[in-house]
């Protein structure tokens, strides 16, 4: 009889990748994790397509563009548990600081008013920004919230271990906004 390894994934929406760095900071415990789970999709591995039937997906970043929105809906449809990993996913955090100002103001500031040689607002290839940056749970159902900027490696290891053991992690004492 072969035991099936759990399938876990991570995705990176509008964030700085700090949460992924923190996840890597679990160091040698990555080996222990690799014994019980396969990382089937992640910016850290080379898979082009988000697979079917993922047990746990860690989501870094807020939902800020049309691409983020498509991705997270697809991920939700194919994941049993979704974890909002870090403040951007949980609250909108730094990306959401543009919300009171609006998209036009920040695009003009970044692409037209910075004295660039060929000032233009990008319209091809790059995804369109949404009018408001939203936390993940404002768009799809989220099962576990892990605030922190970024959450500590300990916290992320605990979250993944608990979920793989079939328990919902209790984080009330472990982390908070802005940690």
């Amino acid at each position: 009889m072969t035991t099936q390894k759990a399938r876990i994934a991570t995705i990176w929406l509008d964030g700085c990748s700090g949460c992924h760095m923190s996840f890597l900071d679990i160091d040698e415990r990555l080996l222990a994790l690799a014994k019980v789970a396969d990382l089937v999709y992640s910016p850290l591995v080379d898979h082009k397509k988000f697979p079917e039937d993922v047990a746990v997906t860690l989501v870094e970043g807020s939902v800020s563009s049309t691409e983020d929105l498509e991705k997270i809906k697809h991920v939700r449809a194919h994941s049993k548990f979704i974890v909002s990993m870090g403040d951007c996913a949980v609250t909108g955090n730094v990306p959401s600081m543009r919300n009171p100002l609006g998209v036009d103001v920040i695009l003009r500031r970044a692409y037209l008013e910075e004295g660039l040689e060929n000032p233009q607002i990008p319209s091809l290839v790059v995804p369109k920004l949404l009018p408001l940056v939203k936390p993940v749970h404002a768009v799809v159902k989220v099962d576990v919230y892990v605030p922190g900027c970024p959450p500590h490696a300990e916290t992320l290891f605990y979250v993944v271990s608990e979920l793989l053991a079939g328990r919902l992690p209790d984080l009330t004492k472990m982390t908070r906004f802005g940690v």
Partner: protein
Amino acid sequence: MSVVVTLKINDIDVSGQEDETILDVAREHDIYIPTMCHLDGLSSVGACRLCLVEVKGMNRLVTACTVKVAEGMEVYTETERLKKYRRMLVEMLFSEGNHICSVCVVNGRCELQSMAGRVGVQHITLPYYNPLRTLDTTHERFVIDRNRCILCTRCVRVCDEIEGAHTWDLGGRGIESHVVTDLNTFWGDSPTCTGCSKCVHVCPTGALFEKGRSVTEMTKHREFLPYLTMMREKK
């Protein structure tokens, strides 16, 4: 001479003076009631509503910081209804301002942030309001960032009641309410502000801070306040 009254808090027999509030008596008996706008040494206004408690026989919730104890009162501080409302209140404070903890001067030392942890708020279920609020850096030494203000009015009260300057006040109405200096003019132009920094130090969040402080660098010192009040009352 004040009269001693006996009452029950969470089914525990306690006693207090009749001129004390429910909050005073609860604290004397090590019973925790969450507060945000209350600060020892200042008057109580019941603005934040976090200290709401249930009193048997009363059909509404009351603020423990303003309601006095009475003989035979039966107070409950930890019912499921109260816990639900506290979480809701904290969520509303977060959603109506722009509280970005990770880049805030008081990250790690903020009363709103720690209250979220205390009442178990780990995400905000309400939609964010994303208000466009102002920031005034015209004062030589301090900044008011209204994005982080929760309208507790501690600054207004300390400036009026302790410093006696009454530079701070509230302007606007409803969701537009905000703290103002003098008649809604720039803080740096204020003829009444003495630059004492009491408002900065009583502020529970990163709304008021010292210039030159970066993320996580602002520590607030409030120890002076009960001491000042006590010494003045003795006089």
